[in-house]
Every structure is written in C-alpha cells, then in structure tokens.
C-alpha cells in the first residue's frame, strides 16, 4: 500500500532524512519511532505530498507522491504534528469545511461528519469554538479531520500527544479498530504505544532507519545471548551469590544495591531458552533465606530503543 524507496530530504545542507526505505502492506499499522528531530515528521510530510523528497520515490496505493500528488491526496488522511485547526470555527463547521475540501459528496457529508465526531468522542462539544478547547480535544478534532472521507491510508504524526491517559487509551483502541479497513502509519516517541498498537516498527534516528521489525521481533533480536532473572533475597550476600552461581545453567550473578536491611537485589543471567525461576526459588528457600521478589526480565522496547540509538552514536 505504501512503498518508500531510498527517500532522502536535504534541508540547507543537512540530511534530515537519509536513504529511508520501507513498505507497509494493506491493513497494517506501522509505528514510526525515533527521538525528536529524527526525521519522522519530514518523512510523513513527504508521504502526504506536503513537500517533495530530494532523492528517491514514494508511492501510495500505486501513485507516486510527486507525479500523481492529487490522486495520493484523495487517498490519505493526515494528522500533522500540530493539528491544523481554525480557532474561530466550531468543531462541526470545521469538520464540514474539511469534508468539503476533501471532495466528499454533498449527500454523504453529514453522515461522514457525524461518524467522525462519534469515533473521536466529540459529540458533547461539537458546537463549541475550537479556540476554546483543551489540547486533548484539539488533538481529537485533528484526528476526526483525518478520518473524514474514509481515506485508505492514515498518516498520524504523534496522535496521542497532549491527551490524558484515558483518552490515550481510547485513541489507541480507535487506531487498532481502524486497522482492519485502513493502512496506518503513526509516529511517536512513546514506546508502549508502539507495542500496543503497531504490527511493525521502524526505528529512525538522525534520518536513517536503524531497525525494522515487529515489536516482539525487535525485543528478541536485542535480547542477545542470555535470559535475565531478577531476585531480591534476604540473606548474607556472599553466600547467596555463591549458591546462585552454583546452579546449573546460571552464567553470571551480580549483586545490586541493598534495599535497606539485609535484602539485596541480584541480577542473574541464565542460558538462553532456560527457565530457571523455579530452581532459583527452591535454592533460596532451601537455605532458609527470605525470597522477597523474583521476576523474569524481558528486554522492553525501551531498552531496544535506547540500545539502538546509543549504539548509533557510539
């Protein structure tokens, strides 16, 4: 549905986007992840025909964003980083205006507008002036605007920016629901958002794609050669460490900070694909030490992200 091939954008000598390529299939939700200033917004602006790329091509639904810009624009819904709102209009009249300029047929306009209002939960405020709304509402009006005219492709630049946790949850659910009928690209720097809503993640840093995989795939890829288990044990530090190291399959034990009193946090590295939690617990309890906490540590997307970004800088 979306094909990006070797796209670069040069702003006054600086490469904001550098040789980016990816594909998004129909019905997929692609997360675009990266620190601020990584080139997410620029890539999205190229895809939405707002600005042309310096090099490379991008196609949406088979249409080139530069050559067939009008055809592309008919097929996309775009929520820019700052929702493009006219503060003096009411939500309803604003959405009607957008429906008109998107070329919605007159007999469908009303139903389109009320559908978008319903999806974004704006029913109670639809006759309020946009300028007087809170950031969260403005963001939702921006999203409603993108949904008008049922575009095949939705391009959302930080859709949950400025929302409260309840609204964030609602919007994520909404985006997941849209995935069946739309193809979605969303950018964010909030990591849990990606693992919750996206099928695939593209991590971009300094204009370059540094990783591209499913959220689970990325975590797996980064986990490397060991499983980790974290324990908090009440007992003599040296003895505990010795005991744990002696267990079959344990590669390394690190004692961490004391949590006050005699309990200490240990980080245990185990062989890959071995679940030693049961064995570790039994060993600690058999010695009469107090086992206060035990959990398997899976590398979160956050660690993956930080790893990739810092590796790039090193």
């Amino acid at each position: 549905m979306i094909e990006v091939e070797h796209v670069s954008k040069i702003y006054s000598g600086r490469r904001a986007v550098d040789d980016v390529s990816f594909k998004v299939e129909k019905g997929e939700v692609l997360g675009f992840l990266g620190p601020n200033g990584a080139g997410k917004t620029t890539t999205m602006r190229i895809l939405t025909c707002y600005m042309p790329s310096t090099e490379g091509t991008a196609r949406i639904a088979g249409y080139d964003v530069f050559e067939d810009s009008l055809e592309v624009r008919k097929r996309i819904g775009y929520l820019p980083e700052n929702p493009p709102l006219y503060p003096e209009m009411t939500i309803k009249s604003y959405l009607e205006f957008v429906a008109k300029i998107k070329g919605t047929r007159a007999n469908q306009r009303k139903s389109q507008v009320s559908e978008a209002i319903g999806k974004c939960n704006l029913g109670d405020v639809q006759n309020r002036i946009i300028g007087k709304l809170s950031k969260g509402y403005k963001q939702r009006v921006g999203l409603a605007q993108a949904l008008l005219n049922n575009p095949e492709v939705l391009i959302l630049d930080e859709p949950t920016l400025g929302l409260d946790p309840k609204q964030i949850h609602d919007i994520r659910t909404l985006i997941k629901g849209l995935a069946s009928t739309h193809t979605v690209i969303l950018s964010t720097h909030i990591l849990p958002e990606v693992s919750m809503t996206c099928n695939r993640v593209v991590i971009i840093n300094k204009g370059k794609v540094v990783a591209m995989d499913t959220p689970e795939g990325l975590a797996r890829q980064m986990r490397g050669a060991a499983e980790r288990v974290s324990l908090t044990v009440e007992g003599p530090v040296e003895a505990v460490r010795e005991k744990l190291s002696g267990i079959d399959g344990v590669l390394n034990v690190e004692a961490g900070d004391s949590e006050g009193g005699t309990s200490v946090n240990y980080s245990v590295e185990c062989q890959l694909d071995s679940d030693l939690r049961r064995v570790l617990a039994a060993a600690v309890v058999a010695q009469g030490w107090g086992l206060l906490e035990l959990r398997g540590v899976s590398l979160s997307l956050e660690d993956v992200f930080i790893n990739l970004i810092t590796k790039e800088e090193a």
Partner: protein
Amino acid sequence: MQNILAIWQREMRSYFVSPIAYVVLTVFLFLSGLIFFGNLREVYQYTMSTAQLGQGAQPIDVPAYVTQSMFRTVTVILLFLLPMMTMGLFSEEKKRGTIELLLTTPVGNTHAILGKYLASLTFLLILFAASSITISSLFIYSHPDWKPILAGYLGLFLYGAALLALGLFISTLTENQIIAVIVTFGVSLVLWLISVFAASATGAVRDVINYLSVISHLDDFIKGVIDTSHVIYYVTFAFVALFLAYRSLESMRWKG
C-alpha cells in the same frame, strides 16, 4: 468548484467573526461619509460666496463634483484599508499550520488562491455597497447621471482588485500578518507615488512610469469614461500578482 466555494465561505466567516471586517467597514464608512459631507459643504460655500459678490454663479454639476472628489479620496482610504483584508489570507494559515491541511487535501493551490481572492473581492463589494448609501442620498435631492457614478465604482473595484491581489501575494511570503500588511502598504504606496517621479522624467521613460502607476489609470473611470486599456491594466496587474502567489506557494514546498 466546491473547493473554491468552501474556501470562500470559510474566509468570509473568518472576516466577520473577527473584529477586522467591522473595523475596516466602520473606518471606511466614517471617512467616506466625512469626505462626502465636506465636499457638499465646499460646493455650498462656493455658490453662496459667488452669489454674495453679485456675480452670476457659474453653473456646476454638483452631484458629479461631489461624487468625483469622493471617489478620489476613497482611493487613498482603500490604499490604507485593503492591505488589512489580505494580510491574513495565507500568512495566518502558515502560522497556524492549517496550510498543511490545505496542501495535503485535494485542494489545488489555484483553488486555495481563488477562493481566498474571491472572498476579499466580496468584501470589497460589501464596502462599496455600504458606501453607496451616501451617494444615493444625492438621488433624493437631485438627478445625477448614474452612468458616470457606475463607471467610477467599476474603476474603484478594478483598482481595489489589483491591490487585493498584490496583498494576497505578499501574504504568501511571510507568516507574520504585520509584515504582510506593512509590505503590502509600502508596495502599493510606491505604485501610487510612482507618477510623481514621472513628472521629472522625459520621453518613453515617462510614459512607462506613468503606465505602471496604479492611480493614473483610475482618472478616466472617475470622470465616467470606461477605457478598455485601463481595464486591461488592472486585470493584468491582478493576474500577475495571483500568478506570483501561485509560484510562491509552489516554492514553499521546495523550501520546506
């Protein structure tokens, strides 16, 4: 067409929900009314004084005199006020980021420009309609020839249309309304005063400078003469300005 209409409608609404339309209307009506009254008084005093001196008063066409001098002053008022009607057309869209909406929906640049331009022309017609109240009072007390008055309005409309197109173009260049209004005013004033320089020039240079002046083409209209060469001047002026606006929007994409 639907696009142009939608943009026209939104622009008209934004004129009239903000105080700007009312302020411009009020100032325009106040000033043109004041000048109308002043002109009438002048004529009255002139006839009185000639009568007192015992000379037979020269016959003058009072309505024509009054409307013509009012039209001449209105050109100055428009010079000040019209930049206010165009300053926000694109600069405000750029500042709010709504330009990103216009340029990523199937609205072409041409439609966006035409919709906004038509809105500013509509406002100009509203100004004229409101100011015609003073002039129509002449019809109550005398029998003015309405054709020269109409010609004068046509000239003013063309002159206004040219200035509005210029303002629209300048509005695409900046995201600051104040800059847009000042530059528009400055450029219009240069095109206005250029005829002063013509006086010191000679030959072909003088003709060219005179031709460029936005005001020299207006005189015939005010006298009641519709000369197509003047019509062509204003229409070309507006067309060139709108074309420049189009190019400016295009180039904005490339600059990013």
